[in-house]
């Protein structure tokens, strides 16, 4: 990825999302559309934006419906602090990740407790589920994590109860 000017921390976060200054379109790119190198570059810019001007970066992510950019960035980052920052941005931005339930169920089982905790918060914030089977599959994954004594197991039990309650509501609405 090339850029026309050096990054000035005093600038607003908007520059990180400016197509004129960055050769790769950051926001709204399809998942896995870019190369690993491009995705890593985008992840670096998102992390920098979130660290320097979190409110501005979150606003832009929301305005640009940047779910896929965030997911690509999470996939390409290995540092656990940066990964947790990006996963946190998913719920802090107020974006809807209903269609990415499975990705966050996977992150929920991450060995890093903070990455797992932030993924848990994303899942807690999902309000609409497409089907009961999605939730049932989520419960099966939760059971495996709880049985394996995941560090966040006590909270996973609460999420399991929430999923059960939503299934009950969905079933009663159908009957």
């Amino acid at each position, binding site marked *: 990825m090339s850029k026309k000017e050096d990054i000035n921390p005093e600038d607003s976060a908007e520059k990180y999302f400016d197509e004129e200054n960055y050769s790769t379109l950051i926001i709204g790119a399809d998942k896995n559309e870019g190369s690993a190198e491009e995705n890593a570059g985008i992840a670096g810019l998102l992390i920098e934006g979130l660290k320097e001007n979190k409110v501005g970066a979150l606003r832009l992510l929301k305005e640009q419906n940047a779910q896929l950019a965030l997911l690509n960035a999470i996939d390409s980052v290995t540092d656990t602090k940066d990964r947790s920052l990006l996963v946190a941005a998913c719920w802090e931005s107020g974006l809807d990740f209903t269609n990415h339930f499975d990705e966050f169920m996977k992150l929920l089982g991450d060995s890093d407790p903070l990455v797992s905790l932030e993924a848990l918060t994303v899942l807690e914030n999902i309000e609409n589920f497409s089907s009961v089977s999605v939730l049932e599959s989520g419960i099966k994954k939760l059971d495996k994590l709880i049985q394996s004594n995941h560090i966040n197991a*006590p909270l996973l039990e609460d999420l399991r109860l929430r999923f059960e309650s939503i299934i009950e509501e969905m079933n009663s609405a159908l009957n």
Partner: protein
Amino acid sequence: MKLKSYFVEVVLEKSFSPEFMALVPDQRKKVNRLMDEGTIVSYSLALDRSKLWMVMETKDIETVMDVLSAFPLIKFMKPDVHELAFHDNVHSGFPHLSLN
């Protein structure tokens, strides 16, 4: 017995150590239980994770301190407690009636 309202500002330790993270699930469960019971009526976390703010309704400040001291994460917290004259929010009181 009339309960009093207290505003609690908590400064959190900056680095999230493994010990801190290991206690987070218990802390969240504890807070959820206190919210269900009505002891904590609001609970907010700063975007930069540096502070927590909560409003508690208890009989006196000693009870607030007892509740705080039972937090799993208390050793990583510096709380500051203020008694409030009142605490109001949009959800309190009677619901608005619709004429439609």
